[in-house]
């Protein structure tokens, strides 16, 4: 084989390689452009998964509590609690950890807040909270430690419109969720910003009131 033939084959190979990579890149771009903006889940499937993810109340023995928890389930699924309190995974929400929290809420200078674990886990969830403490957050946005919950983050004023009986139903349902051990970090502030206003914004954002 002469050197000329070898050079021609090499050139053809390079062309083929170039064409292939151009095709691949074009394909990737087309994929990115045309695929709908969902985490590899179609909208219908998304709805189905979200509705089915809320654990049913059939395992509750007491018939009255079962009826009440079922109302709570309706309120929890329709009010969009999962929108924030679902655990995000690498491929979208982790519905097996229903309402175990962990979603990050970034607020410019203020820093990052993380949604709480609402499952009845004793250490990391609402296990140690009394019913009244949960109801107080839903009604007045006050945590057991007395701190205020910022209403632009957690829309408790909307939930304060639930009747006391509906709030009771929601708490009854939350108590029946599978306890998931999922420790939620405290809110963090972006400490690289050496601005006094940032500290204040962080406090206001997380606790709804000025720093005492």
């Amino acid at each position: 084989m002469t050197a000329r033939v070898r050079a021609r084959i090499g050139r053809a190979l390079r062309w083929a390689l170039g064409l292939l990579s151009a095709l691949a890149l074009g394909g990737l771009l087309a994929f990115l452009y045309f695929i709908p903006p969902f985490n590899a889940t179609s909208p219908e499937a998304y709805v189905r998964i979200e509705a089915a993810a809320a654990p049913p109340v059939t395992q509750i023995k007491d018939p009255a509590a079962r009826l009440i928890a079922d109302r709570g389930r309706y309120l929890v699924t329709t009010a969009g609690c999962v929108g924030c309190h679902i655990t995000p995974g690498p491929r979208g929400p982790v519905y097996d950890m229903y309402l175990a929290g962990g979603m990050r809420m970034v607020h410019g200078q203020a820093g990052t807040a993380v949604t709480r674990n609402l499952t009845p886990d004793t250490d990391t969830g609402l296990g140690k909270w009394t019913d009244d403490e949960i109801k107080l957050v839903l009604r007045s946005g006050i945590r057991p430690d007395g701190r205020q919950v910022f209403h632009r983050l957690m829309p408790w004023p909307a939930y304060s419109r639930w009747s006391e009986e509906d709030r009771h139903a929601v708490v009854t349902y939350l108590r029946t969720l599978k306890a998931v051990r999922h420790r939620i970090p405290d809110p963090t502030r972006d400490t690289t910003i050496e601005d006094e206003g940032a500290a204040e914004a962080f406090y206001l954002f997380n606790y709804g009131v000025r720093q005492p």
Partner: protein
Amino acid sequence: MIRPRMRSILALVRFAVACGACALALFGVWRSVRAAQPAATATPLQAGKAVYEQHCAYCHGTSGRGDGPVAANLYPRPLDFTPGKFKLRTTETGSLPTDDDLARTIRDGVPGTSMPAWRGRMSADDVRNVITYLKSFSPRFAAETPQPIPATTRNADSASTAQPGQSASRVVQSVARGQAAYGRLGCAACHGADGRGTDAIASGMTDDWNRPIEATDLTEPWTFRGGPSARDAYLRLRTGMSGTPMPSFASAAADDELWDLSQYVESLARAPIWRMTAAEVAAFYGRQAQAWREDPVQRGRELAATLLCAECHTPVRDDGGRMEELQFAGGVRFRVNPFGDFVSANLTSDTDTGLGGVSDEQIKRALTRGLRRDGSRMLPYPMPWTSYASLTQDDQRALVAFLRTLRPIVNRIPGPSRPALPLYLWAKFRMLILGIDPPASIYPGNAGSRR
């Protein structure tokens, strides 16, 4: 040799003890000075201001006008202290409340509203100081000295405090007389013949601030603003609830009649669901569903309030408060990175810019399947239609019925916008290939156009 050394050791010990005593004494003085300092510098008014701004201003506003950042989101609204109109008093109608009245409201909270019981969260001093401060919002407090109404007896007759067997028949008679008074004084006009507001004005009334107010459902004592007992009901009847349509009946009825009436109100109470049997719960939910079907607009109003509609469809000021004049008119800008800017829709019934020209089916489709009028698909966020997809048919109908009643507001909403192509592709690559969730940002201000 030993004795001088002993003496020097003793001297040392004595010196050490003296030093210790001096140090202790100095420490004691320093501590008492330090402890005395705040009391010496902070007046009750200043201390009250600190407590108020920490705990109260979020709802009632720093100016006491009931306009804190969260106020517009709350129903009922937080009280405006400046006119000096207080609902829960033991003083004659039109008067100011006593300090004890205010303290009781702060300590026990106001059931049926977002005002929590501060008992255990505020010290007695804090409560006293914050009362001093909130009285400074209304000039009336400087000019008037409120006096409680003469101490009333008869509270031993209360059905809840009556001993079994004792005076039971007297209670029954009192309830019967109270029922007659309920009719004679026209209570049913607002509260309904059954106390539940059926066939009455019940809703559609306004308070002195021109805000909607509803007549209390008298069968649900756990929502009574001033407390559930017959004595509380008596006080509301006797002194009225300033700022609301609830008048004082002091001139219309004798004291005894008001006591009978409060006894009757107490007898109207039904069991709350947490004390019901399964059959009662089922029957209760059945009745509720029936009532919702009969009055879909009212049900839709409740749903819209709890399903967060106004949270995103009402523009927000820079301080986080709502632009009330644009309630439900949309215009909140969301940026969901890769996908660009989305502006919440105008839900009012304006034909041109709102839902006036949109069919019921189209609204339901958007609500539960995320389809816009042109057939394009919404993201599953920020509009949580994936959650609303679980709404029952009745509730969907109710929501639509309520949206149809919204006063038209012109607010033209721009369509969704997409960033430049390379940025769009890169951001989508991050989401779909690298699995990094797109952050969403909400912006204050109205992105719609009012023309």
